[in-house]
């Protein structure tokens, strides 16, 4: 099913309480956006500081958006094309992510119906992104729900919940079941299941990444080690020569003796320096490889909802 930018954007503006100006059939979607949304979508911090310091009432902006690149823009209004790649669209996506994090909802029944008198049980829903990361990544969206009365866990809970009509209006308190599990315990139970979930994955990706890492480290090591070996040999040779050349007498003032010693010393130090540099480089290369390849899993919850359902 292809994603419809059109549909998403219109729902977004509705959800943030914008005033829709254009009519349903218009090619151009015109909408007056509230101040807080304006601040989020258009990045103009100095403008807002200025307006507010003057105590002025800011004018709500009207946006004119088009979704079909084939349609000609009208001459008189300043119109923007929104596609999947537009920066504006990504701003809207990020705004939705910031604004849709935490909720408290109740299963909805029409007011006079039979079911409207049923007891609603408290559930905690967590939506999260599970990322498998090495030098490549893969994301999974996962949701968990827990019944706060009996501790029952439900995987993929979000998909179930979506099917029910929900409302923010709370029914009478007598109809609401009470949680018997604390928030922290609920979290513990869910996190434990999370670990199981993750370990149930096919771990090929991690094994492969580790193998790659070992292979790369091996290559780096053999490259630097062969050079280090050569240098070490040179160093040993020179140090041996040094012994031969060093004068037997401590207060030998023979100029030749002294100068030869200093020359040898200098080369000595140079080689030691080079060895140090190479070791440093080798360590850095290995660190970089570990940084790149070490497999790890990162879990980022992105929404948490308290839901009362039958």
């Amino acid at each position, binding site marked *: 099913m292809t994603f419809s930018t059109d549909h998403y954007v219109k729902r977004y503006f509705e959800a943030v309480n914008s005033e829709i100006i254009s009519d349903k059939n218009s090619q151009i979607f015109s909408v007056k956006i509230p101040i807080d949304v304006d601040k989020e979508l258009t990045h103009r911090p100095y403008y807002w500081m200025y307006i507010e310091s003057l105590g002025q009432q800011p004018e709500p902006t009207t946006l004119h958006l088009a979704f079909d690149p084939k349609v000609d823009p009208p001459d008189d209004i300043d119109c923007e094309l929104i596609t999947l790649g*537009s920066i504006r669209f990504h701003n809207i996506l990020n705004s939705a992510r910031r604004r849709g994090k935490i909720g408290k909802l109740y299963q909805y029944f029409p007011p006079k119906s039979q079911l409207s008198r049923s007891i609603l049980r408290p559930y905690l829903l967590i939506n999260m992104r599970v990322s498998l990361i090495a030098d490549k990544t893969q*994301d999974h969206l996962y949701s968990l729900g827990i019944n706060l009365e009996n501790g029952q866990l439900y995987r993929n809970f979000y998909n179930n919940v979506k099917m029910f009509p929900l409302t923010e209006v709370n029914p009478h308190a007598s109809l609401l079941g009470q949680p018997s599990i604390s928030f922290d315990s609920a979290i513990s139970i869910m996190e434990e299941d999370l670990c199981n979930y993750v370990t149930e994955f096919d771990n090929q990706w991690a094994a492969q990444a580790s193998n790659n890492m070992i292979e790369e480290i091996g290559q780096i090591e053999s490259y630097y080690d062969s050079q280090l070996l050569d240098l070490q040999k040179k160093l040993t040779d020179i140090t041996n020569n040094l012994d031969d050349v060093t004068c037997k007498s401590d207060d030998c003032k023979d100029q030749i003796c002294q100068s030869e010693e200093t020359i040898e010393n200098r080369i000595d130090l140079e080689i030691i320096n080079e060895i140090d540099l190479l070791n440093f480089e080798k360590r850095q290369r290995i660190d970089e490889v570990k940084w790149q390849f070490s497999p790890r899993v990162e879990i980022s919850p992105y929404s948490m909802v308290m839901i009362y359902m039958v």
Partner: protein
Amino acid sequence: MEILKETELFPIYINRNLYTQFNDYMSNSRTDSWQLIELSHEAEKLLMAKDFHQLECIKHLPQVIPYPHQTKTAQKVISELRGRAILADEVGLGKTIEAGLILKEYMLRGLVKKVLILVPASLVLQWTRELNEKFAIPATAQRKHYSWDADIVVASIDTAKRDDHMNIILSKEYDMLIVDEAHKLKNRKTKNWQNINKIKKKYCLLLTATPVQNSLDELFNLITLLKPGQLGSYNSFLQNFVEQKRKPKNKDELKKIIDKVMIRNKRRDGGVEFVDRHVHTITVELSEPERNLYDAVTNFIRKHRDLNMLSLLTLQREVCSSSDATFVTLVNMLKNVATGSELELEIRSILDISRTVKEVTKAQRLVEIIKNINDKVIVFTEYRATQEFLQMYLAHHQISSVPYRGGFKRGKKEWMKDLFFSRAQVMVATEAGGEGINLQFCNNIVNYDLPWNPMRIEQRIGRVHRLGQSRDVHIYNFSTVDTIEEHILYLLQEKINMFEMVIGELDSILTKLKMPKGQKLESNLLEIVYGTQTKEELTAKINELGEKIIQAKEDLQKESGSVDIFH
């Protein structure tokens, strides 16, 4: 991120910030609507990376539809080459796009946040603009000391080389490093190489059309920057793979190893077709009044070589372009000349001669050409006065035209292009450089006058002869008998065949001759023109220059041929 659990193969981290936020909201009775929660979930779905290997970024690009070879390259670098690679496509295939795709993909996946991009100074703004416009990547061009702190920085290689800047760079850790024109890093003994080697980086791309210029060593040095040991130690590399400076042995094995770290697309493969160029020379004989004007100006210049060289050069070229342009310059010169002086008299007499030119032969021929082509044509001229003259002249002959100048704001450039596309037959342009406006719906170019810098001619042609042009390109050049322009055209067209060259080839040749961007070539030509007394001498010197350029071209072919030994 906090650690949740250590398993045998990997650690599991979790970000618990949302829990705290949840409790905050609940105690303040604050909640988000279900609508927004659904929208948030859908956003996550849209932005997630569903597969380890499949590129996600393509659908998220604002303006670019990449070519298949570009997508394939990006895919391969991420899946198989593990993000450390030499992008060595032949010139003109879009290495920048490939680098942009790879960067975008890693950023979308959260693997890359901090990026350093090192490019030649003249390309800093272009790279910054392309990344922002084509990939929606918020790159900033490095200007002051603090701009190194930005997440995505584009900087000049030379600026970065300075100790104070390099110290800052070496103190940071980059998720990705990109280096353009990386053949500058071919020698491990240079400071540049050593600096790049020291930079802490996770992923790295080196871009160059010529990874091997002189010897196989250079390839070894480039690869060592990415994956030290890939070709073994230096000694074992020499032993196993190097027959002579430029001749490899064990080619098959060498190729296999190089394939793991370098990608080189060639024009011939991958179905990327570059259309042909056809060059037409239009010979023009000056009428008597025009000849008089030309001779008068040329003699004037020879006589007064002590005057401002630049104005004289301009004057000489203008008289090859149009009498209008000449007129304007002469009138301006008058303003700076003492009244009653001999100089003033000379200039006035030339102005008189220019007034006798009633018919412009070149313009007449231009109208013929345009009518014969019977399709859209871009006419290039160096001079505003000529441009205005031509628009009037064309209109007089019922040919519709639009102007195009470097000074136009972007909006006006687009507008002119649209008019050219939908209404006018001809665009008369003074400006060829700069990116952005797509003129590939036109495949005919007339050089009404020739810049003496071949790179500028190349730029003109490059407006229509590039990836995306579907028809063969026709280039019309005027050769005005017995003028300097004739000699220059001879040099460029007959001698070094510049119009038949592939895109970018001229650039490489000029760089090799240490005449980057063609500027020194211009002054070389000037010296020849004024340093010679007879026509024979002039011809001989121009031939000599031609030989030098041909030699450089041949040397270059040998060099780029050697990379292809293993492909």
